[in-house]
């Protein structure tokens, strides 16, 4: 069964249609790349999947659970907006009402993380003034349970949990190769290290699916190679990977499958070899130039 199924997904910004009826699916353990010219809607796909933007129409099913569900009547949409905007003073009440009515839940980005999707950003969004370790600990947050009372009384359970969080964060850093810099301020790291730290932070949420938005942007060749290696290692740990990338070396080198987007629609879907030979892709995406591999 597919891990992620996107079915005729569309997203409008005002009059602009950023994604137009996109469908694709992703099997567990796969590395899938989305490529396409600038403005093709790649990042928007990521933002819809991770709950940052609501979709206009279409469905996304992740791990058998609906993430995005837009087949609803106007009245339902109004109700949903009302519930969201009022926030609901009683926790979980809007969710409860929606579930009663058989409507899909309101998923915010953190709910999507809870379901098992973690992401990185196209422009690096670390917590720049915090240390490397603290950055990674952010990913551990949602599995923690300690609250204000536990912290105030410093209960043994809280202390155990803190120690576990730190130890696991260190493990992630060792995995990604940043363990020697864990007390440094994230802002002071070299660019390539910041990229890696963002991946480590996303991994710390223990995702089933890791969504990487141009991880190789700004990296030199050696760093790019190291990144490919890292991505493979992450996959070998059982994490499925969805990738946006411009660097063709990286894309062709590690992808099991590639989807090509142009103007919000899918124009090709296949293995790297197939994509390189696809006439549509060469015409639409690479234009007149030679395919550069």
């Amino acid at each position, binding site marked *: 069964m597919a891990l992620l199924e996107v079915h005729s997904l569309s997203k409008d910004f005002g009059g602009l249609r950023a994604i137009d009826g996109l469908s694709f699916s992703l099997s567990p353990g796969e590395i899938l790349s989305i490529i396409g010219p600038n403005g093709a809607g790649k990042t928007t796909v990521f933002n819809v999947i991770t709950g*940052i933007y609501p979709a206009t129409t279409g469905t996304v099913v992740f791990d058998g659970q609906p993430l995005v569900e837009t087949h609803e009547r106007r009245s339902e949409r109004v109700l949903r907006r009302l519930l969201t905007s009022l926030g609901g003073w009683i926790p979980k009440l809007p969710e409860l009402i929606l579930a009663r009515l058989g409507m899909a839940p309101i998923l915010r980005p953190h709910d999507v993380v809870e379901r098992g999707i973690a992401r990185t950003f196209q422009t690096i969004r670390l917590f720049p003034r915090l240390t490397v370790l603290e950055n990674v600990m952010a990913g551990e947050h949602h599995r923690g349970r300690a609250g204000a009372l536990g912290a105030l009384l410093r209960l043994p359970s809280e202390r155990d949990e803190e120690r576990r969080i730190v130890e696991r964060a260190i493990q992630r850093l060792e995995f990604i190769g940043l363990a020697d810099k864990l007390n440094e301020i994230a802002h002071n790291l070299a660019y390539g290290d910041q990229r890696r730290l963002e991946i480590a932070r996303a991994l710390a949420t223990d995702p089933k699916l890791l969504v990487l938005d141009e991880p190789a942007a700004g990296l030199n060749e050696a760093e790019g190679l190291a990144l490919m290696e890292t991505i493979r290692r992450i996959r070998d740990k059982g994490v499925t990977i969805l990738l946006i990338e411009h660097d063709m070396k990286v894309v062709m080198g590690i992808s099991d499958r590639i989807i090509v987007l142009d103007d919000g629609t899918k124009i090709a879907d296949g293995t790297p070899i197939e994509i390189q030979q696809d006439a549509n892709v060469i015409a639409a995406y690479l234009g007149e130039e030679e395919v550069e591999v």
Partner: protein
Amino acid sequence: METFLQQLINGLTIGGFYAVVALGYTMVYGVLKLINFAHGDMFMWGTLAGWGLLTTVFAGLLDLDLIAVLIVAIVVMAFIGLLGMTIERVAYRPLRSAGRLSPIISALGAAFALQAVARNVSEARWRTYPEGLLKEMPDLHLSGTVGLSGLQILMLGVCAAVMIGLYLFVQRTRIGTAMRAVSLDHNVSRLMGINVDRIISLVFFIGPALGGLAGVMIGTYYGSFNFTLGWVFGLKAFIAAILGGIGNIPGAVLGGFILGISETMVVAYGPDLGLVDASAWKDAIAYVLLIAILITRPTGILGETVAEKV
């Protein structure tokens, strides 16, 4: 019905004052993304300076009241405009890159300082404008008891002129275009050859100058004021700016009128609806309106929802 129309006219006049003060807030917010808490007190300084001039230097010219008030208004506008520029130079410019908290403290500090000076100059008493000022102007009777006093016609006219003039200035002139560019992005504007500091200074001249004008108008309309005027009225004008969608000139005008009319209506009809102390709750209306609108429209009525670029 007649009371309703009359209240509507009164509300419009007050709304006009709110709108003119709100323009100052909204312009500053547009270019600096800063809540200029000192704006209310600058506006109050306008009332104060108008009072000072009319009771001393211009006391002899009161026979020609319209001309005297006009000259006073222009002098006050220039003075308050320069004051605004000074405050921007001293209190805001050094903090432009210092995060979000520091400028707020600095603005509040400037407001306190202005208020303290005004309190001491006015000796913390209610002060009155010369009596009978502009009361001789012809009234306009619409029907029955409904009508506009000459003063109201003048005030509404000036407000309308200011709003339209400012709107055209911002939309049609080169400098106005530069202002809009600066409000979108300082760095890009700088790359396009716009002198950002000068534009900000200009905004800090125009905004407070309008505040000064509104100050003189309010002094003339109500006749008396004290040094706390700036805070109360200024805050409400700021709320008007937010109601309409801050950074947006038509929004500030719309917000001003909504606020003015709702206040007048609640005071007029509150007792009929069971709100015994309607006038005591008058000040709360602005706040309640603000919260109600922001819950449903987080960026105000005409404000655009800006999706964060990810």
